[in-house]
């Protein structure tokens, strides 16, 4: 789906709040037309700030940022016309019903009344909210609100969709509906940027991920390649035990053994090397699973809490 056309280009992009908090620190990135890119990072890493600069909500402090060749510093009105935004917090208009939320929002983009109504109906159908058409915002569940916010982000038929933590706080059903819609939109050719700290979400949806920490992009890549590179194939997990750690290190000299709390995790680049260990210690509660993006993330960003 993605092409070689660069749609969003950032060079030495920085954001400084109140002259002292450096939220985004001199980052470079490209987003190509038609791809789905995920900004991944712990809380406070600078994901939301980066996204807010793209849709011209926040002025940039330093560097360059262009969207479809337009400079965010001078062309914000033009840029906002073809971007759809689903913000992290719920800012639906509680003074209006579900459908009116979409119609009024479309008006801010100069969409005519008839066209706005047509699009509103289509979007409500797409997001399975038709039955709630005339409901008040207060009557919606968290998942419905999230879907309505996404529907609202599409009323201007955007070329770029920015989704800031689109599934935070949703139940598994709600998450999968949202994921399904994101995939459909991506197939339709919409360029999507999402932020998340759910690794499975990034793995499931993103063509590429940017791992962000302390305002910097510390790694970029295709999810499964990053996993291979930083976490290998399999991960062995077992309860901490001095003897066990010593043994693991001896038996698996190429593997990396990591102790965290009362758990030991062993990463190995090769597939299948842990089978033998299980056989050797049938009484230990050993689990072997596939390496995932969470392993990559934790190894790159560390385990320290960020708040």
């Amino acid at each position, binding site marked *: 789906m993605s092409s070689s056309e660069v749609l969003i280009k950032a060079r030495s992009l920085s954001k400084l709040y109140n002259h002292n908090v450096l939220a985004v620190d001199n980052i470079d990135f490209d987003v190509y037309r038609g791809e789905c890119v995920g900004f991944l990072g712990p809380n406070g890493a600078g994901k939301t700030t980066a996204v807010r600069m793209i849709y011209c*909500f*926040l002025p940039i402090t330093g560097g360059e940022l262009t969207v479809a060749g337009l400079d965010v510093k001078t062309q914000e009105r033009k840029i906002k016309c073809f*971007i759809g935004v689903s913000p992290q917090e719920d*800012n639906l*208009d509680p003074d209006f019903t579900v459908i009116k939320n979409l119609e009024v929002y479309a008006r*801010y983009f100069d969409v005519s009344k008839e066209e706005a109504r047509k699009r509103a109906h289509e979007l409500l159908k797409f997001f399975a909210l038709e039955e709630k058409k005339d409901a008040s915002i207060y009557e919606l569940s968290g998942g419905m609100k999230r879907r309505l916010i996404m529907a609202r982000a599409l009323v201007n038929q955007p070329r770029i969709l920015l989704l800031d933590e689109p599934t935070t706080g949703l139940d598994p059903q709600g998450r999968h509906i949202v994921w399904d819609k994101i995939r459909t939109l991506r197939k339709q050719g919409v360029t999507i940027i999402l932020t998340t700290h759910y690794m499975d979400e990034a793995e499931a949806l993103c063509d590429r991920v940017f791992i962000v920490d302390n305002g910097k992009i510390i790694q970029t890549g295709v999810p499964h390649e990053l996993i291979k590179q930083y976490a290998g194939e399999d991960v062995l997990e077992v309860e901490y035990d001095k003897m066990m750690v010593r043994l693991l290190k001896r038996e698996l000299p190429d593997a990396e053994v990591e102790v965290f709390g009362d758990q030991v995790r062993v990463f190995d680049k090769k597939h299948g090397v842990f089978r033998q260990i299980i056989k050797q210690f049938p009484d230990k509660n050993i689990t072997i699973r596939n390496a995932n993006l969470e392993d990559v993330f934790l190894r790159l960003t560390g385990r320290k809490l960020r708040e």
Partner: protein
Amino acid sequence: MISFFPKLTYRVWLVWRRNLEVFTKTIFVNFLPSLMEPILYLAAFGFGLGALFGASNIPGYSGGYVQFIGPGLIAIAVMYGSFFECTYASFVRMYFQKTFDAIIATPVSVEEVIAGELLWGATRATINGTIVLAVVAAFGLVNSPFALLIPVVCFFGGLLFASLAMCFTAKAKTIDFFNFPTFLFITPMFLLSGTFFPLSVIKSSALEAVALGVFPLTHVVHMTRGLMSGEIGSLLGLDSTAMWLLALVWVAGVTLALFVLAIKLMKKKLIK
């Protein structure tokens, strides 16, 4: 001038329209109280209190007491209508509902959002002021065809108080902060701007200076009273058309300054 005055487009009216649509949805809640209030004031102060001290004792004013307070009530409705709209109501939209954030993500700019809010505040003031005018007229207290211009005064007076209110909103960290401007500024202004009695009755030049220099309501009352009686220039015994025009210039200048300031302060608050 170009950098001083914010760049605004027709999109200001999109924000205004959003507020109008919410207002019309709840028209009965909004309409009935503003209709009742002037009737009660006229009854209690005009026909009640006014009856105690007769009609001909008002310095610099030829009409009766009920006629005297009528234009004051219009100005008060203007002040409360726009001030509360652009403090409490705007704060709720900004802080709790995040409505401004949602709109700023569209081609509407932050300056246009605030300008739309201010014009809406002025519109609320015009609606409230005109309702009071209609009530006062129904009691037969309007003497001059100039009174038809009162809604225009309501709009610009409303824009003044809306802009003033929005400056406080830009500085408010919590909604309780509005107790300060409401009780320390709006309430004194409500009572001491020539609304219920001519200020010359209290022989204090300090009060007169404050009323003329700091209380915009004084000038709005001056204008509504002049238009309603046809005697343009009736306050503080300064009985001249020149004084009426001075009030007009004062209101226009302060409105423009506060309008620009409110937008600048709100932009600073919303865009980090």
